[in-house]
């Protein structure tokens, strides 16, 4: 089964519970057929935004437009925006087949068409044989697929997934997220997924909106967000980011160890910005062996974690705590906790973020 993909436009949406502003001027343009993630920590407003799209919350301001038609004023049951709930919300008094048929019966479709679409939806998620069972007789992964089948059976304009992997165990999660991506791509349905797990967003989504404190911080592909985060929050929320402590002076940035770092030319650097770099973009060199090519910070190894393909060292350099990843090859010698080291970073790899 395939459906017509539509675009979703979130236009200046704001929402509040009393005086507590949960969404503040959200603007998003989601492309037809895109798998789009709303990523952020708990309480960032991502779930509220999803519920707003489905019609379960009220916006103070703004519009939601699907395929050129505004839906903000419609009640949930007139929106045709399919939502898969975090808890799946399968009705225990109905069989799998009845659950999937529910939305079709609400639309008063002919019996034959309902049957055909239920069969198609269940076949699509690979659960044809479970049609007469009760939801409670299925595993968590199967329940989720029933919830998905129930939603796509009505051929919604947009698909919303609320933390789709949070109720699955870790091993299943990796498998299900691949399935989810494959299903979404074969359906071609514009899909918005809410998650707090950056790995989940990065691995399966085309684009991600990182949210914090009711605002969209940055929108982009996972690699864009990782390589060119616009602020410290995004840099730290996606992967690990090291921050060099210090302050901006008239000449440039002065680290608290007295090392001067030149500001990049032709780039607008905020006055409160600090240099930020990724653990794999740096080198650890035993004290006194570094050349003069790049500025380096003296420090001491305080932690060491073995991650399989890499070794992660924690280095204390002044008041900065820095993570450094070194590739691990069997037989290579490791540095020990307490070793004095120099941390060098190529200046062109530094991001200047506030």
């Amino acid at each position, binding site marked *: 089964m395939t459906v017509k993909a539509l675009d979703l436009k979130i236009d200046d949406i704001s929402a509040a519970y009393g005086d507590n502003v949960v969404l503040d001027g959200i603007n998003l343009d989601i492309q037809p057929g895109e798998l789009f993630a709303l990523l952020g920590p708990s309480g960032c407003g991502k779930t509220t935004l999803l519920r707003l799209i489905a019609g379960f919350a009220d916006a103070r301001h703004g519009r939601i437009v699907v395929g050129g038609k505004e839906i903000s004023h419609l009640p949930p*049951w007139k929106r045709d925006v399919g939502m898969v709930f975090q808890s799946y919300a399968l*009705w225990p008094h109905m069989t799998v087949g009845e659950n999937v048929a*529910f939305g079709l019966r609400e639309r008063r479709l002919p019996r034959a068409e309902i049957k055909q679409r239920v069969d198609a939806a269940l076949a699509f998620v690979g659960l044809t044989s479970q049609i007469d069972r009760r939801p409670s007789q299925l595993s968590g992964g199967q329940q989720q697929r029933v919830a998905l089948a129930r939603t796509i059976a009505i051929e919604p304009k947009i698909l919303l997934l609320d933390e789709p992997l949070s109720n699955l165990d870790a091993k299943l999660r990796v498998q299900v997220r691949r399935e989810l991506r494959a299903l979404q791509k074969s359906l071609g349905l514009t899909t918005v997924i809410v998650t707090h797990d950056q790995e989940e967003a990065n691995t399966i989504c085309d684009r991600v909106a990182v949210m914090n404190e009711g605002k969209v911080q940055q929108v982009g592909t996972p690699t864009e967000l990782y390589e060119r985060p616009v602020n410290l929050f995004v840099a730290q929320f996606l992967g690990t980011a090291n921050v060099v402590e210090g302050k901006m002076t008239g000449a440039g940035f002065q680290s608290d160890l007295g090392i001067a770092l030149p500001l990049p030319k032709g780039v607008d650097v905020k006055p409160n910005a600090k240099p930020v770099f990724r653990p794999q973009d740096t080198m650890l060199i035993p004290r006194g062996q570094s050349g003069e090519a790049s500025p380096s910070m003296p420090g001491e190894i305080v932690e060491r974690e073995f991650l399989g393909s890499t070794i992660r060292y924690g280095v204390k350099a002044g008041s900065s705590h820095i993570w450094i990843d070194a590739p691990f090859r069997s037989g290579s010698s490791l540095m020990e906790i307490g070793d004095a080291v120099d941390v060098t970073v190529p200046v062109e790899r530094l991001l200047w973020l506030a």
Partner: protein
Amino acid sequence: MTAIGLHNNRRGTFVSRAFSGATWGQVSVALLILAFLLAFLVWPVATVVWVAFTEKGSGAFTFANFVDFFRTDLFIRSFWNSLYVSAMAVIGASVLAMPLAYFTSRFAFRGAGLIQILGFLPLIMPPFVGAVALQLFFGRNGTVNLLLDDWFGFKLAFMEGLNGVIFVQSIHYFPFILINLSAALRNVDRSMEEAAQNLGSYGFRLFRRVVFPLALPGYVAGASLVFVKVFDDLATPLLLNVKDMLAPQAYLRVTSIGIADPMGYVISVVLIVASVASMWVSSLATRNIDYATTQRGGGGIAKRKLRPWEMALVYVVLTLIILLVLAPHFGLLLLSFATIWSFSPLPDGYTVAHYARVFGESSIYIKNTLLYASLAGLIDIVIGTAISYLVLRTKLIGVRGLDLLATAALAIPGVVLGIGYLRAFYGIPLWDGTPLASLWVVIVIALAIRRLPYALRACYAALQQISASLEEAAENLGATKANTVRRIVVPLMTGGLVAGFITSFATAAVELSATLMLVQANQDAPLAYGLYVFMQSAAGRGPGAALGVIAVVIVALSTVASQYVIERDRRTKAGSTPNE
């Protein structure tokens, strides 16, 4: 593994949950409860059954008494009447309860809380008292019929014969459906409803296809309760002068012909069988339904705002229902201040003389009732908590049986229990030679046994909502089993316990079926008994009504207080639950 188990049993930690071990404390509590139930439930009921199956005088086993029962037209007619009245009362109660439950739990409007409270009011008044008041409004020469006759020239037979019993019982017992249905509706997870809306469902269809089916177990539980209560009620038909129903027949046999006459016992057995059968049917209806629908981060169904015209419609419907429900209370209040009220829409004049008389000579009834009902409620929640804890948190062998036994009291009509107590405890003399059956404590125990099933369910539900990991955390931090129960379980159950206590207290305070037979001396009589005696005569109706008003006020105040406790409890718990 078993070797490890033996070591750990001393503290009853994880192994006691995994295997069948239990602490000595748990075993002795279980045995104490068992002894109590055997003495005050099983033995009296067994006595009744034994008498029904033995020949009078010789004590030989016989079916002759039952053959007599089925050959007597009066008894057969009584049986069908009881069945018919109970079924019709369930329908009447549903008609009253469903709109109240639906509107107040589904929509946000002013006064929803007030309406819920008003909806519970009938429970705090004995149904036979309501019967007297309803006679005044709806009887052949009551207010409504006098007005109807005046304006339209006809009368309606609301209160004639069986109609009267059905009418009174529907109004009196519908809160059981209201309570259970409202609770079930509140437990329907919000996402269950939102998922349906998301797929295009709304309005009444949404309620019919998703919300109501999910709340069905609650409705059926309430409906079967109403059926059983009406089937076993004694005082209402008696006061409405309907004698051809089963419970009145059993009572009349034992009290007028004598404690030795076997027919009273035979009818008792028939009453038990009918109650058990109706409960069995209701459990069949809900057998395959096990909806624990509230999920983490969920919450009850969302309350919707109403448009103005919808709001007006809802208010009209609810006001009519509430007026009907409150009619007994208004009637009682008027009657308590009335000089004479007969063949007129309203009383002829007003006085406070009835109250003076009640406070003067009849205050003993009030004291007795407060004492008996509180003691019974206390016994109930202690036993209820103990049983639910044993069932839900230990693997003690046979605890389920204890639960079943305590719940079985539900199937024993009050009149049967009363007869059983009389028969079983009359032969046991106390130190001063008076029979055990005439001691007031026996009334308390009868009330406690009668109310135990309800309190037990309340305790059970309260405990079920507490995650076992909260207790495990306490044990992990070094608390013993007993301390965990005291410091973690009981405080978290407070809301449920208060609810259980109040239900027991309020219903025990207006209970008469079992106690009518057990009251031996006027100074030991509870309020309901006093009311019944007053209401027998036309002259006693004024003071009787005054007594009734006092009863309603006392129980209403305590219910409001408990509501406050429950609400506060709910709010503190809601605040501590993690929520995305």
